């Protein structure tokens, strides 16, 4: 049979001239899309940067695009935030750094260990025992709400009751769940929209007197990001050949040593990517911060939002300054971690 005919007309533009070269038409389409996308991504950043160097007049009098041509740059907004209001700015900045990094470290540490356990140990929790736990905790809440019992007392009794009943009845339950179910349950925490549970979360922190503290936000961020860490790291740990760990065991290493010396170094790319993602999510988080902090633990996103609630209208210039300083640490972190991430892609590709 003869080979297919060469195309004619427009289609000819999309036919590669030889192996290893792309057709002119394809290149035009690809570069057009890439350029459009770059403009779409980069223009807002450019706009934020030039706005931060504009005076209120330059902002209000109409769109100016090019510094020194359209308008004269000024340090007015930068001065306002870093000279006159520097205390507020610095405090929010420090808060963000403390809260986001603590939450990231805590979340990645706990999440990776959970993921490793799920990847390597078969759990068979009994459905009945889980239901029992839910019932006991629910009873504790009823006691709190209806009878006005102290929260710690109600919880302690609830948990004690659970252990007692689980010991007494546990043997009789048959249905069990597996690791897949646990994993799905963990990721399902992320399906829920945070706004739905924001009021209960607020009340919980109110009960334990942690509102407007760093700890409240660190806990809240760690918990909300935990599913992402577990999900991503589970895949990573699962892809590490079991042979390596068994070999380390036979070589005489303990489980912890195997985890530290063999598993963790091999999952560095995954850890870097996950850390970056959790850091960005915690750094940019707005909703929980809005509810759980008022002044003491206020973070950068709240500061940005505050810029459009002043008596003088929306302070675009100040907002731009805050946004720029807010972007910088994340960009730096991304640059540092990017090395590991790209390496990870290669490692996965070669391993097969």
């Amino acid at each position: 049979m003869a080979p297919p005919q060469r195309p004619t007309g427009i289609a000819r533009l999309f036919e590669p001239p030889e192996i290893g070269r792309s057709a002119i038409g394809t290149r035009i389409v690809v570069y057009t899309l890439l350029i459009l996308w770059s403009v779409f991504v980069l223009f807002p950043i450019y706009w934020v940067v030039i706005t931060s160097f504009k005076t209120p007049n330059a902002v209000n009098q109409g769109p100016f695009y090019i510094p020194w041509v359209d308008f004269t740059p000024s340090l007015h907004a930068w001065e306002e935030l870093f000279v006159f209001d520097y205390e507020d700015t610095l405090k929010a900045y420090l808060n963000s750094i403390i809260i986001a990094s603590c939450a990231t470290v805590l979340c990645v540490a706990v999440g990776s260990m959970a993921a490793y356990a799920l990847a390597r140990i078969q759990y068979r929790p009994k459905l009945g025992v889980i239901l029992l736990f839910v019932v006991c905790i629910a009873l504790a809440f009823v006691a709190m709400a209806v009878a006005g019992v102290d929260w710690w007392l109600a919880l302690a009794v609830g948990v004690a009751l659970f252990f007692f009943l689980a010991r007494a009845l546990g043997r009789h339950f048959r249905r069990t769940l597996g690791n897949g179910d646990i994993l799905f349950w963990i990721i399902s925490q992320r399906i829920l929209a945070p706004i739905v549970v924001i009021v209960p979360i607020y009340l919980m922190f109110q009960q334990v007197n942690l509102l407007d503290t760093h700890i409240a936000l660190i806990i809240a961020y760690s918990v909300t990001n935990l599913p992402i860490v577990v999900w991503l790291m589970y895949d990573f740990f699962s892809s590490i050949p079991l042979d390596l760990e068994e070999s380390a065991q036979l070589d005489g290493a303990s489980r912890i040593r195997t985890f530290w010396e063999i598993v963790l170094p091999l999952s560095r790319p995954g850890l870097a990517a996950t850390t970056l993602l959790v850091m960005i999510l915690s750094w940019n988080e707005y909703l929980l911060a809005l509810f759980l902090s008022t002044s003491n633990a206020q973070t950068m996103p709240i500061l940005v939002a505050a810029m459009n609630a002043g008596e003088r209208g929306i302070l675009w210039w100040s907002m731009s300054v805050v946004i720029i300083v807010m972007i910088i640490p994340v960009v730096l972190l991304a640059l540092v971690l990017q090395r590991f991430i790209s390496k990870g892609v290669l490692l996965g590709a070669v391993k097969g």
Partner: protein
Amino acid sequence: MSAVAESTGHAGRGVERPGAGTAKRLSMRNLNKSFGQVHVVKDLSLDVAPGEFLVLLGPSGCGKTTALRMIAGLEQADSGTIHLGDTDVTRMLPKYRDVAMVFQSYALYPHKTVAENIGFPLKVRGVDKAERARAVREAAAQVHMDGLLDRYPRQLSGGQRQRVALARAIVRRPSAFLMDEPLSNLDAKLRGFMRAELKHMQHELGVTTVYVTHDQIEAMTLAHRVAIMNHGVLQQLGRPREVYDNPVNMFVAGFLGSPPMNFASGRLSGGVFEAPGVRLGVRSQGSGPAVLGFRPEDAEIVASGAGTFNARVYAAELTGDVTLVTVVLGDDNLAVKMPKEFEADFDSDVGVRLNLARCFLFDANSGARIDGTIEGAASA
């Protein structure tokens, strides 16, 4: 040997010839293991003498790897015991068992150099740096890898990785080596070469070795004794020659040899074995469906009518040193090894003459050997 003799300071054991004094007996008694509903290893009892090279041979899924993993401690036996020397290791953590394992995938640590890989077992044991470096160099020299200590596994070829895995196993002078198909990821040429090297090294070190493979040539060439397993049951245990020349059942007969033993199905009754075109007198009282077995080298192609039975040539293949002739008898394809000069036309009628002293009869249902001498062609 002198280099090895000097290197015996670590791990508290000093012997002139490593292995000779430290090699331990490995005994398994009534081992059982099930995964869910599947009974993988059934009542396995085996004794491996100190310094012996024992090969566990069987098709995939026969339970040989599970048996090995139970010795290593990577799998817990459901019942039965494992002793290494005088110690009961049945429930001992792998790290305390003093066995080293070479995995099919080599299981080298990708982020460690060759030297770090080989030295890892010593590092974990807290052997100091200088001592470790010396032991690593010696182990590496033994597998001819001493020039590549700073490389990473990804920079090594398959054969070199295999050597590093071996060096990591020998560096700490274990009481027993466990090897799980260590050569199956190598290409054919390298496999043959490494096989000889492995045999030589095991002989020099004199360490008790259990070697798992599905490759009968590896088993025949390497083993002091072969244990053939099928469906989790030990079929036969013996020296390679014994097992080859005197198989206890059809499975063993059909698993060993390349090509394996030929089988011609027929019936045994009244002292006569009958298959299409074949009638053989047998001194045996048995009756029922039976199978005649003979090895390709125990038969020859002769002129039609001059042999034990007649058959049709299906194909003749020159393999180099011999010509392998496949003939058709009834529904069975039979292979016969002929000198390399032999030639035969497709579909030509030929006779096959058997060396009757080296033929076997098996019960077609159970596969067990039927005792009885085959006496020769029986008249109708």
